[in-house]
């Protein structure tokens, strides 16, 4: 994983726009957050391989970054993205890692299911 380069992310978002794509969207404090006293609440949500089509998608911010995808009836949104996988040229694999390197948020878009 590399530090996000917004221009490269924007290019991928444009490339995948307007077609049916599979999305993995996740946010987590980790299952141990309450046990370790890092937070009052261990909370996680993810949706894997949701099929969406977005008509516009863009990256915003100065880093950590935000991505918003406008769908026919709503939005897909992720905030706190710090890293991406630059070896992938036809899918977006992005995540936000905290100071310890632990994943907090993930956004992935692909024409193939994950």
């Amino acid at each position, binding site marked *: 994983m590399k530090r996000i380069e917004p221009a490269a992310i924007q290019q991928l978002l444009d490339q995948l726009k307007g077609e049916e794509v599979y999305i993995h969207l996740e946010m987590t404090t980790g*299952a*141990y957050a309450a*046990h370790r006293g890092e937070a009052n609440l261990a909370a996680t949500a993810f949706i894997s391989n949701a099929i969406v089509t977005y008509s516009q998608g863009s990256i915003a911010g100065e880093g950590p970054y935000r991505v918003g995808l406008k769908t026919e009836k709503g939005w897909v949104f992720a905030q706190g993205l710090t*890293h991406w996988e630059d070896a992938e040229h036809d899918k977006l694999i992005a*995540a936000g890692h905290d100071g310890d390197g632990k*994943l907090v948020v*993930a956004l992935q878009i692909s024409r193939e299911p994950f």
Partner: protein
Amino acid sequence: MTRQGNILVVLPHPDDESIIGGTIIQHIQQGAHVTYVCMTLGEMGRNMGTPLFANRVTLPRIREKELDEACRILGIHEVQKWGLHDKMVEFEDRAYWVQRIQELIRATKPKLVLTFYPGHGVHPDHDACGEMVIRAVSGLAPEERPVVQCIAVTRQGKQLLGPPDLENDVSDVVDQKIESLLQHQTQFQLMMGDYSPDKPEKKERYKIERLWTYRF
């Protein structure tokens, strides 16, 4: 060396076995044959290595290799990867997996099963895994039932369950245990903190393993 029969280890994530790695090594040294069912590949883990070398997509294969290497060092004879989805164990068809565990117990006739203590796992996968093992063993005739020893990781575990039935000193194999743990490269910084083999005081907490016997 007298053969000590079969042991079945049932845990949900690669690296869970390292909690009881010393106990596993000692059993194997005494001649036991160990089968380890690792229910998931830990693919929803948050640690991608430091510096980051894995991602959500590559993590399952990387953790599978780490698991194989860690188990080779422990000397585990057979690793079965059941392919459940990490974090989703409690939402699976439990009756189906209970039956699978029962079939495996009937086939391998272990004298001992090691798993998580239901309700004391902290992680929902740990609890679901322990519950399914307990249900599987409960469903056997009393004379067919192996001894079940459980890992409890909740803070209140000792108060609620009483002192552990086994406070196992694994000092004699602690280096091998740590070597196995270090194979979980994506995970070990998180698990071990600032552990370094040069700091002997850090070894201390890996020298005692605690297990509670489940009473049916």
